[in-house]
């Protein structure tokens, strides 16, 4: 079940490279170069240094004593990716890919972003490595994550607000791909999640796998359960991959939005159907004609109708369990963690926390759960404030 380099770019039946012909040489060049540096000692050393000195790795594993006590079940540990430079796990991948782009002699970097975390992490990596960054961001997301737009601009990146389609993450990817098709020779597309055509899902997983590798080292024994949130699924696959061949129960949490019975969610693994989008075959949210559905999540970073092909594979193999939690449960978890531990989680990461709270109650006190806290929540405080103003009945209202 643990797939190193996927044959023909496929994880089981999922993945592949469904791309316009103009991109074929670029994808081939990327694949060739990536496979070359994948085992290159110098590359690893250079990236390893950057991850330590620049990004702040390794990140701690923190035993959330107060949260555990409050819930009263299994011990909950947090993998603190929120403490990384930029405030999220995204920098693990952007440093790796920006370094690769530099080696390939590409000077212009484009990227998509949802909540803005990948855009910020791209802008940071590019600033530090002397590359030019242009970021595509859905217009709706530029409005709900204004601060991140300005952060990217401060870091020297150009931000394009995408006004086509649903004006969110998927449309930002569409526009980034169109840019790549147009400027294929000069440009490197730095994809932010474990999605897209091969070799992106492989590459992003490899760069994020440092999360799971550290968890394995830091925990005295393999945890009983490991939980991470899944949008495209990069922090989750990075967490899960090194633990696939252990006994740990592995759980990925999707954005249940206003509930799976409504259409307002972003949960392709729990409520979607197989299809082809953004260069990959995977589970998608779509209507009966195959049109991609507009998604909803309180967290911009999970607001995406598809999911990385390796997750689709791990679901069908029954190795990873995928569940969804609702916006309401997410806000609740956000507030509990903030109050008990003094840690403000990203709304994306609060999805994983919400599920940990649910299952820890049913587990023994001697058991342990590791939750990947993929990012910090400073970017989300306005959304939470607005939500609390509208939902006066919330038990934990401030």
């Amino acid at each position, binding site marked *: 079940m643990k797939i190193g380099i996927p044959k*023909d*770019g496929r994880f089981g039946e999922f993945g*592949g*490279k*469904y*791309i*316009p*012909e*103009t991109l*074929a*040489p670029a994808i081939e060049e990327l694949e060739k170069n990536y496979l070359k540096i994948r085992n290159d000692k110098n590359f690893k050393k250079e990236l390893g240094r950057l991850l330590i000195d620049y990004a702040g790795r390794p990140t701690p594993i923190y035993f959330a004593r107060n949260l555990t006590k409050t819930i009263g079940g299994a011990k909950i540990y947090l993998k603190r990716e929120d403490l990384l430079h930029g405030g999220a796990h995204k920098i693990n991948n952007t440093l790796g890919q920006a370094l690769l782009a530099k080696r390939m002699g590409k000077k212009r970097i484009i990227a998509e972003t949802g909540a803005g975390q990948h855009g910020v992490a791209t802008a940071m990596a590019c600033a530090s490595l002397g590359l030019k960054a242009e970021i595509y961001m859905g217009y709706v997301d530029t409005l709900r994550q204004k601060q991140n737009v300005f952060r990217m601009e401060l870091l020297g990146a150009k931000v394009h607000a995408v006004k*086509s*389609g649903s004006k969110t993450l*998927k*449309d930002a990817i*569409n526009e980034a*791909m*169109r840019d790549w*098709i*147009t*400027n*294929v*020779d000069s440009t490197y597309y730095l994809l932010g999640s474990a999605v897209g055509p091969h070799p992106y899902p492989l590459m992003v997983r490899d760069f994020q796998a440092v999360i799971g590798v550290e968890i394995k080292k830091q925990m005295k024994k393999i945890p009983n359960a490991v939980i991470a949130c899944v949008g495209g699924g990069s922090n989750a696959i990075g967490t899960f991959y090194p633990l696939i061949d252990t006994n740990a129960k592995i759980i990925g949490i999707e954005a249940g939005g206003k509930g799976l019975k409504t259409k307002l969610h972003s949960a392709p693994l729990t409520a979607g*159907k*197989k*299809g*082809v*989008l*953004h*260069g990959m*075959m995977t589970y*998608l949210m*779509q209507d*009966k*004609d*195959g*049109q*991609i559905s507009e998604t909803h999540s309180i967290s911009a970073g999970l607001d995406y109708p598809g999911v990385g092909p390796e997750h689709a594979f791990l679901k069908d193999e029954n190795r990873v369990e995928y569940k969804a939690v609702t916006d309401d449960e997410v806000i609740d978890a956000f507030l509990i963690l903030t109050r008990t531990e003094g840690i403000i989680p990203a709304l994306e990461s609060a999805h994983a926390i919400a599920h940990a709270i649910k299952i820890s109650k049913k587990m023994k006190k001697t058991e342990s759960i590791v939750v990947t806290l993929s990012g910090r929540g400073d970017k989300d405080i306005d959304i939470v404030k607005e939500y609390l103003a509208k939902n006066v009945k919330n038990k934990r209202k401030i």
Partner: protein
Amino acid sequence: MSRIKEKFNQLKTKKETALISYIMAGYPSEKTTLAAVRGLIQGGSDIIELGFPFSDPIADGPTIQMASTESLNSGTKIENFFSIVKKIRKESNIPLVLMTYTNILYNQTYLKFISRAKQAGIDGLILPDMAIEESKEYVKAAKKIGMDTIFLVSPNTEKDRLKQIIKSTSGFLYMVAVFGTTGVQTKIHKYTLDALKNTKNAAKGKIPVGVGFGVSTEKDVQKYVSSGADAVIVGSANIKIIENTPANKVQARIATFTKKLKNRTRY
């Protein structure tokens, strides 16, 4: 013999390059689509390429993106599309090609979708996001049903890959003229003409080569015809006319424009 192949054979004896005209089905309405089709036929278009909208058209520029969104917003479903095709088939025997994206087919399974398309009267398929590596099942289904699979090649497609693509292609080969998405361009690049020459050489006369993306004026048509293209494909320019013309005048304006282009296709 497929309608497309037959058409190319006929044109060859007349020493004419094929004019392939693209419009988006359901943009802005079914009625206007039918009017535009009549205009295209009246103006002398040789093959009609009907777009079925997809929510995420990554190979399309702003004009066709807009038409896709509008068509979907007006409620175009796959049933409506096939019904438009059937209506056209009642009036004309012109070759009809469907351009859409892979997921639309994948959603119903290739075999089921292609047989429905064939039944409605579609002769060939263009899927800009269907890479040759992923096409085995698709090509197999199309062959079984007798549907032409029109693959795209790009100016940067390498020689061996080109050969491989030609092997899976039937009807005609679609050469993308530019690095970029669909839409109006201002000039014809030298790299495009070089690529056309290479592609023609690789096709060895066994499969016609059409040039599309950014072909919008009589001058463009003339240039590609004189450079040896077997077909020229005009898309966004038609959409622009439809966008800027009152519904009752669409047929006439499209006919006039198409006639002007078609006049330049003799070699």
